[in-house]
Every structure is written in C-alpha cells, then in structure tokens.
C-alpha cells in the first residue's frame, strides 16, 4: 500500500451562525466568526489517496486525473465563493473547517476509481487544520 498526497489551495469567505441559537448564543459560541458579512481565508487542501502501485504504470493513481477531479469537484465549487451562500452543503450546515473537510470527502470519494480516498486535510490557516478519514 502506498499513500499519495496532492495539495491545492482555495480562497473563500464564510461566517458561523446557527439560526436555532439566539443572537447572544451565536455571539458567545462563534465570536468574531459570527459577523454576518463574512470573512475569508486562504484554505490549503491535502488529499491523500492509497492503493497498490500499478505494475505497468508505476502509479498509485494518475495524478492528472486526481488533479482534474479535485478541480472539478472541489475547487470549481469552493474557490472564490461565499461558502454559506454559494455551496449547497452549507445552506444547512455551518461551514466550519470540520464540515468543509467532510463535504470535500463526500465530493471526492465517489469519483475516485483506482485509488481509495484515505484522508482529507483542510488548513484554514497554517495553525489550524482538520483531518477527516471517512465515516468509519
């Protein structure tokens, strides 16, 4: 088994707000992130896939295909977007780094054919990141 990781970056804005909370609760729990006008980050994404090395190609996965899937399924949808308003997953869920990592997993996992998705890592800043390994 060999693990391969591909990185990408996207920039997006978001804010944290739960309509079931009172304004005071939203302010207390989410602090500055509750500003309804949003704020932005340069997110860094690391997608790790795993698999056996194909004897003929020497690849775990065709990087060109992986890059295309990441572009189409993730970056086209998230890059330079206001996540709360433009990405369907976040009309119901708060676009925390946790939920972004989970959403990216669910976008990528069904599209990967040869290699298996192992981990999605999302950096909100260089000092804060979330790993998601699937539901198991």
């Amino acid at each position, binding site marked *: 088994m060999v*693990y391969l990781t591909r990185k990408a970056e996207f920039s997006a804005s978001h804010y*944290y707000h*739960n309509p*079931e*909370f009172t304004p005071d609760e939203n302010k207390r*729990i*989410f*602090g500055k992130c509750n500003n309804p006008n949003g704020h932005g980050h340069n997110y860094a994404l690391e997608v790790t896939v795993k698999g056996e090395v194909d004897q003929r190609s020497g690849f775990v996965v065709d990087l060109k295909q992986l890059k295309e899937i990441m572009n189409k399924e993730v970056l086209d949808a998230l890059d330079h977007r206001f996540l709360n308003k433009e990405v369907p997953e976040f009309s119901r*869920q*708060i*676009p*925390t*780094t*946790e*939920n972004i*990592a*989970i959403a990216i997993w669910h976008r990528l996992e069904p599209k990967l054919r040869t290699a298996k998705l192992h981990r999605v890592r999302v950096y909100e800043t*260089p*000092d*804060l*990141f*979330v*790993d*998601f*390994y699937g*539901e198991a």
Partner: protein
Amino acid sequence: MKAHLSRRYLFSASHRLHNDAMSAEENRATYGKCNNPHGHGHNYVLEVTVSGPVDERTGMVCNLVDLDQFVEREVLERFDHQNLNTLPGFAGTVPTTENLCEQIYDILQRGFGYAHLEKVRLEETLMNSFEYAGGVELRK
C-alpha cells in the same frame, strides 16, 4: 461524524541535556553540544490534535476558544520563556523534547475535557519533531 482537529502553538524555552547519573564524559558523549552547561534555546512548535464527533449545532469538534485558553493557561504559561531544567517537572528528568512531549500530552490528557486527545506533536527545530499519543501507535 468524527473529525480530527489540529492546532499549532509557539513557545520558546531553553534547556540543557544532562543526566546526573552519568559521568561528565558520558554526558558529553551522549548529548554533545546539548550538554553545554549554560544551556541553549529553541522555538518550539506545539501541535495538538483532538478528535470527536462534529457537533451538529456548532459544526465543531470543540470550540477553539476552549482549546486555546486551556493550552495558553496550562502549557504555554508553564513553558514559554522558561529554562526547562528549572521547572519541577524536570527535577529528575532530562528535558529532552521526547520528555517534554510526554509531559504536555499528560497535561492535556488530564485536564482538557472538551474533546478526545489524539496526540501531541512537538517540533524542536525545523529538522526535528516528536509525537506522542499516550503510548499507542499513530494513525497514518
């Protein structure tokens, strides 16, 4: 759904690697430059990883404010800008980054209740890092 959240913190401290149970020669052979009697310092990078189900109401494994406040109060205030050798925790223990990593893990394991502690990773320099997960194997 379970996710892992990691947060990085910086602190600076000095130490000297020396074991009283060894001869001066043995200390020098074992610890090299790190045995310099006056000590030396590092900018440590601490990476704390916690895990847990993502709360449906907040979208969070745990509130970062709680993690930051705990680490600030219990770890950074204790170690930042200190000479590690002078601290009670290193009275009978050589302040290697291995031992420091274990001590920080224990502090978090005992006191931080908002999420499950997965591991502590400590970078001593850009070239050296240490990880401790309470004695269990690390998830790759």
